[in-house]
């Protein structure tokens, strides 16, 4: 045997030995590698989400931060920030926790290592695609559901992989009865699938663009049924599952009341799904649906606080240790922020409070109290708990954890309090009416200027939170470097398998029945709420006619969606005195009946635009889009110079109108056939008018013309 042959034999033997070891380990140990991967991804994407958020906050205090690059304008960056925070940071954190705790609670390895890897890498690819497409303006224009149809399909596939892996693990568990954390994971897996599929149904007209099948009020209701429950079932139920597992682990004591956790689960899952319409109070959504959403939102107080109290009371008798255990502080503060957010959410859902708070910065403060405090702190606590265990090392520095906690806490408080004050200030200024029945602050910009110092405080709060996060990264990297990855953790009591012990099972022992019951709990509310969308014509006055947008206006509408204008401008006037005085007649259900997607918005960093059409001449819009400061010196809106430089893509217009016609927009054959020519002709008329007004630049065929056409059409298509 020569040296090469000897080497080959040696390598084969080594590989066989390694594989045998690996296979044996697979059967007797938990898969910790996948948990480590998700933890690292959480920290990496957390950085992206937080820095994008800080950058967006700075753009609001100093508009030149929008830069002249279209990819970094606020309207495109904000969806990137929210998607990164929700799906990249929080998403990876919950997957880390679910993969770690599920295996241990069921005393079995995940169903398939391959599915775990596909899930991990598939999810990271989705995030990368989102990070590329959102700055490019490829968006569906629906909050937290901006990603376009190919990515939506990928999300569905990856979620199915996750579900298969999760339910496969449940099927081969060694523990007969499922702990409450597993229930919350089950609710997450099935509800997110239902929400994502229903809200994302769309008809593509190109490789990367589509129109949602839902329109106007239908779209608004489906979107907020999805949007609110994305918060509920992506940012709440999985974190509650993690809470029920990790708090007993760190405290080294069972949850305070297991019975309360059962009530918490069923009440929360049943009620949450109904709460979506509280995002649409005073809009043209039918009143009964608004009331239903409001009442169920208020009812959410009870289960939410039940869960929070249950978590906090688990620390009973051990509060003195909080002083010496900085990791505990994260869990306690996280739970406290959960309590604050779930107190404030129902409060904001009360119609009279919503009249003041909706569209203001108060909502932004509320959201960040939950995201930074509840989701962020729970994730950090979990990471600090898991890393030393998974890398076999002592935490590098408890002092750094302590510093991280206090920096983060002060950061959140500055953020939250400043936005709360800013929101109430905005609400009061918008509503102020003098003794003559006139608006005290008729210029919208007055409210923007008055809250500018608070925008600075918010940016400072965000910066402190990030400094704390950087300390965590340093601490964790040093911990990992000092540790070592050896074999996976062995499965406890391998021989004991009480699933097959022959004793009777209770409900908690039937995974399929349990899953079906959870599905029924969320479907009841879903069907009752989606009901009006099936019967939209019952709410529409047949005598009121609405004309669809012309081809050029539709093109402009797509640009409006691309630039994320809906992030700062609403198109929904509520039937409130001040809104009528400021913007005009309240919006009707008919006005947006052909809007795919609806653009009612949820925030007014700038004024409502529902009646913007024909309010100003074309030249005003041209100047305003090029540089808003020319028309309003104190404006914080980004300059959209690229709209003057980029050409309208006439090649897609026919396809777009055809898809919209298939979705029920009453375009004639003639309109679809001549869409490109009609659009060109209308663009020429606008361009000629602008030239007459003194525009010297080359504007023929430029996107600015389509945007002006759309803005001038707002509120001009009938429906009243």
């Amino acid at each position, binding site marked *: 045997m020569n040296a090469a042959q000897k080497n080959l034999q040696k390598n084969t033997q080594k590989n066989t030995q390694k594989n045998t070891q690996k296979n044996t380990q697979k059967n007797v140990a938990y898969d910790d590698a996948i948990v480590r991967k998700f933890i690292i991804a959480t920290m990496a994407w957390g950085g992206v989400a937080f820095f994008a958020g800080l950058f967006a906050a700075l753009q609001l205090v100093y508009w030149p931060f929008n830069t002249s690059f279209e990819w970094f304008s606020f309207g495109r960056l904000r969806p990137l920030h929210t998607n990164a925070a929700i799906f990249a940071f929080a998403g990876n954190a919950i997957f880390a926790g679910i993969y770690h705790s599920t295996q*241990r609670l069921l005393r079995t390895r995940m169903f398939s290592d391959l599915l775990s890897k596909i899930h991990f890498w598939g999810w990271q690819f989705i995030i990368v695609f989102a990070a590329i497409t959102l700055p490019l303006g490829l968006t569906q224009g629906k909050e937290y559901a901006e990603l376009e149809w190919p990515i939506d399909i990928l999300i569905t596939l990856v979620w199915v992989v996750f579900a298969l892996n999760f339910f496969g693990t449940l099927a081969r568990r060694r*523990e007969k009865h499922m702990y409450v954390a597993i229930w919350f994971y089950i609710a997450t897996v099935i509800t997110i699938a239902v929400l994502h599929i229903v809200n994302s149904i769309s008809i593509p007209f190109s490789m990367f663009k589509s129109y949602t099948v839902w329109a106007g009020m239908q779209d608004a209701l489906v979107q907020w049924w999805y949007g609110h429950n994305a918060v509920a079932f992506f940012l709440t139920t999985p974190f509650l599952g993690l809470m029920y597992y990790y708090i007993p682990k760190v405290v080294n004591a069972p949850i305070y009341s297991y*019975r309360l956790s059962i009530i918490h689960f069923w009440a929360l899952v049943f009620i949450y799904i109904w709460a979506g319409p509280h995002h649409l109070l005073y809009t043209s959504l039918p009143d009964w649906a608004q009331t239903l959403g409001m009442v169920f939102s208020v009812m959410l107080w009870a289960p939410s606080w039940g869960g929070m109290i249950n978590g906090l009371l688990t620390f009973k008798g051990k509060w003195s*240790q909080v002083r010496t255990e900085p990791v505990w502080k994260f869990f306690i503060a996280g739970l406290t922020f959960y309590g604050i957010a779930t107190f404030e959410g129902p409060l904001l859902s009360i119609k009279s409070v919503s009249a003041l708070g909706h569209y203001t910065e108060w909502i932004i403060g509320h959201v960040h109290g939950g995201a930074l405090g509840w989701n962020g702190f729970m994730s950090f606590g979990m990471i600090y708990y898991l890393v030393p265990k998974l890398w076999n090392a002592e935490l590098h520095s408890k002092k750094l954890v302590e510093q991280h906690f206090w920096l983060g806490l002060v950061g959140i408080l500055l953020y939250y309090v400043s936005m709360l004050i800013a929101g109430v200030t905005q609400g009061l200024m918008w509503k102020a009416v003098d003794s003559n029945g006139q608006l005290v602050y008729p210029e919208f910009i007055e409210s923007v200027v008055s809250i500018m110092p608070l925008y600075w405080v918010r940016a400072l709060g965000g910066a402190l939170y990030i400094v704390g996060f950087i300390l965590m990264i340093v601490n964790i990297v040093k911990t990992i470097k000092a540790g070592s990855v050896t074999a996976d*953790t062995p499965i406890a009591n391998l021989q004991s398998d009480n699933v097959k012990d022959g004793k009777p099972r*209770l409900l908690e022992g039937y995974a399929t029945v349990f899953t079906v019951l959870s599905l029924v709990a969320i479907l*009841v509310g879903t069907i009752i709420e989606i009901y009006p969308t*099936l019967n939209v014509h019952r709410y529409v006055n047949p005598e009121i006619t609405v004309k669809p947008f012309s081809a050029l206006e539709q093109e402009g509408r797509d640009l409006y969606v691309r630039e994320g204008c809906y992030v700062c401008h609403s198109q929904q006037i509520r039937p409130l005195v001040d809104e009528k005085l400021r913007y005009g007649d309240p919006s009707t259900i008919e006005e947006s009946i052909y809007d795919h997607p609806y653009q009612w918005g949820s925030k007014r960093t700038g004024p409502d635009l529902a009646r913007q059409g024909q309010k100003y001449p074309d030249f005003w819009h041209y100047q305003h889009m090029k540089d808003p400061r020319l028309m309003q010196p104190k404006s914080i809106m980004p300059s959209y110079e690229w709209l003057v430089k980029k050409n309208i893509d006439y090649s897609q217009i026919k396809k777009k109108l055809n898809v919209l016609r298939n979705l029920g927009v009453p375009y004639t054959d003639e309109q679809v056939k001549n869409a490109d020519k009609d659009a060109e002709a209308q663009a020429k008329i606008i361009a000629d008018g602008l030239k007459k007004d003194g525009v010297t630049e080359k504007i023929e065929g430029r996107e600015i013309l389509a945007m002006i056409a759309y803005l001038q059409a707002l509120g001009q298509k009938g429906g009243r």
Partner: protein
Amino acid sequence: MLRQAFINFNESNLIVFGFLLFFLTFLGVLIWTFCIQKKEFYNILSASPFIDGEKREEKNGEKNE
């Protein structure tokens, strides 16, 4: 077909129906949890986070069960 099923369904009935369903579910869960299930069963379930074989940590002289 679904539309037909709902065609004569008044909105206020829907709200009442929704509440009734919730309260019935809630009542069912309460009865199940407090009357039917035994406390001992829940004591066993609540110890689930500690069955993973990992050593329970001792802090500040505290003794594990």
